[in-house]
């Protein structure tokens, strides 16, 4: 095996010096994710600023005593545009000419209803000019302001009525007699966290990782296929095959070089993505403050190692598959279209398992998915977060067995003259029909 090192070094140099691979696989994730994160952060902060500083309009038809307190409440700490017209129709026309995105309409009879112990009726009109989140946010701000005022009004009334009746009850308990809180049990531990929050957290951390791996795997597959096809196109592979070096060594060198670059791409992807997560959600620190570690689902060192092994065998299997397929291509274009079919088994399990658990699916569908090795990459990663190491090991074993089978086929192809004579065209439907 004295010749494997130069083969790997040559492969890495060839790949890394190709601007398409250097930019697409290594530099792009480092650039695109932080830029995306910053863009999201800037836009979200702008939305929040727009919501906080948003002005809204008020059109009041009521002239009774109760409306004064409501107007005082609204005009304090908010930018309110009063609209004074003869009718609601005119008020709506004037409102559309202002910068305000919401109009609070206080109907005539508001005070009368209040004095008679009936509900005061208000209406909010949202002017959707640009269909942005900020517009919806301003409407929510007005609704929330009214909600707080309504709550305070109700509490003070309950308090007064209880005092008058000499009832010692807590006004809060009278308003909401039942209080429900949720907790979750994970691995026998009771956690004071709603299950929905835990699932959101698991999805964001344990599902995002395999999806990232899948995306990176697609890059790696294209890269390895292009590399083999280029060797065939330029006949450098033909030259390699006549050197005093084992065919298996040539295959291993090819695979080794691709793995080195793919792992560099994976690291760059991870760095870029983690930067994206922190910068994109920096406008709301609460979203990122809870980690799987906080709820006892954090990755233990063993889990981390197993995830690493899982990703590694997934990568090797994808690269071996790409190399085996690309051998049948004459040129780069046909290699890329051949390996393009691999998108289906790589991406489909990721998408399905993002939305559903395997056990929720019909049995036939489950078996089909389980037959695809890349399903196990996702199952394994999820299981590592849950500390179910047997499932992780089983997933690794399945992918490894598949990889060995693919490598065996690749080695067989490399050891025969098919590496030189195999052609994508010979697998055409027309060719098959002719043979019959």
């Amino acid at each position, binding site marked *: 095996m004295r*010749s494997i090192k130069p083969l790997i070094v*040559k492969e890495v*140099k*060839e790949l890394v*010096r190709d601007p398409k691979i250097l930019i697409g696989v290594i530099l792009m994730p480092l650039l695109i994710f932080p830029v995306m994160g910053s863009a999201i952060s800037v836009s979200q902060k702008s939305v929040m600023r727009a919501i906080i500083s948003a002005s809204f309009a008020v059109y009041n038809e009521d002239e009774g005593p109760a409306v004064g307190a409501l107007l005082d409440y609204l005009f304090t700490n908010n930018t309110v545009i009063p609209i004074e017209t003869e009718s609601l129709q005119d008020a709506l026309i004037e409102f559309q000419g202002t910068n305000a995105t919401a109009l609070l309409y206080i109907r005539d009879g508001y005070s009368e209803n209040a004095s008679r112990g009936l509900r005061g009726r208000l209406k909010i009109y949202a002017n959707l000019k640009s269909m942005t989140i900020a517009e919806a946010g301003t409407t929510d701000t007005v609704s929330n302001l009214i909600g707080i005022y309504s709550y305070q009004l109700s509490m003070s009334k309950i308090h007064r009525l209880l005092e008058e009746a000499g009832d010692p009850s807590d006004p809060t308990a009278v308003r909401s007699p039942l209080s429900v809180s949720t907790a979750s049990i994970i691995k026998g531990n009771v956690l004071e966290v709603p299950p929905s929050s835990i699932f959101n957290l698991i999805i964001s951390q344990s599902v995002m990782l395999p999806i990232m791996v899948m995306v990176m795997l697609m890059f790696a597959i294209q890269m390895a296929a292009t590399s083999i096809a280029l060797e065939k196109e330029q006949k*450098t592979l033909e030259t390699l095959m*006549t050197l005093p070096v084992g065919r298996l060594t040539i295959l291993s060198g090819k695979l080794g070089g691709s793995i080195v670059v793919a792992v560099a791409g994976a690291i760059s992807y991870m760095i870029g993505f983690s930067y994206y997560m922190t910068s994109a959600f920096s406008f709301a620190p609460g979203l990122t403050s809870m980690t799987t570690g906080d709820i006892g689902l954090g990755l233990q060192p063993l889990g981390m190692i197993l995830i690493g092994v899982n990703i590694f065998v997934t990568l090797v299997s994808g690269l071996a598959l790409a190399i085996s397929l690309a051998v049948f291509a004459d040129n780069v274009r046909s290699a890329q279209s051949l390996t393009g079919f691999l998108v289906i088994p790589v991406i489909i399990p990721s998408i399905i398992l993002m939305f559903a658990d395997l056990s929720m699916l019909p049995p036939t569908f489950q078996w089909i998915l389980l037959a695809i090795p890349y399903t196990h990459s996702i199952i394994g990663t999820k299981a590592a977060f849950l500390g179910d190491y047997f499932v992780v090991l089983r997933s690794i074993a399945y992918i490894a067995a598949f990889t060995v089978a693919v490598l065996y086929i690749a080695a067989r192809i490399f050891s025969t003259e098919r590496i030189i*004579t195999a052609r994508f065209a010979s697998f055409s439907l027309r060719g098959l029909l002719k043979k019959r």
Partner: protein
Amino acid sequence: MMNAVEAKGLVKSFGNVMALDGVSFTIRDREIFGLIGPNGAGKTTALRILGTLLKPTSGSAEVFGMNIVREPERIREIISYLPEEAGAYQNLSGYEYLSFMAGFYSNADRTAGEMLEEAERISGLGQRLEDRVKGYSKGMKQRLLLARALMMRPRLAILDEPTAGLDVVHAYHVRQMIKDYADTRGVTVLISSHNMLEVEYLCHRVALIHMGKIIAEGRPDELKQNFGAENLEQVFMEATRLA
């Protein structure tokens, strides 16, 4: 003296296509042997079989007494093969490419450094060897590839159309490289070409191949005399008419 190559009844078929149909020829040690014929005659298939890339469907061939089917690894130690219109790794420099290739042949007798010195001399590319291959012209690339094929001093160099697509100046230079190297180092060269004049200038002996069969074999002057022709082109036309 042991023959460099002995091919006996080589047959190679790809599905229904018969690329070689009972090809036999002998190449003596230290001679330049030309396999000439038109496109699709079977030259590349014959060279690929001797280069251990393909296995014959039937028949046998030996390179310096080693069987190409049973001992391909041993044969690869002593041959170098240059495919037709081959390329080099675009993102490596010429020097890196040669260094990579020399690594497979270096041993206690001859270091990679010595091979690189020789390659530099053969190619005549000088400082351009520091540049990436993707910046080379076709002629420069072919000189680099030929230097790669010869620097390890193979006992048999198999060169498939080494001047194909080259301009007059580069083709002349490449032919000179082959002739000088074979003369000074005593290397056996098997060259394929459809340029009859080139073969006449370079080769000690030639075999004419047509539709997978050898239709004539001998020294160029001998063949011209036998067929009453002025050059190999006429010999080929006459031989195909009689075949």
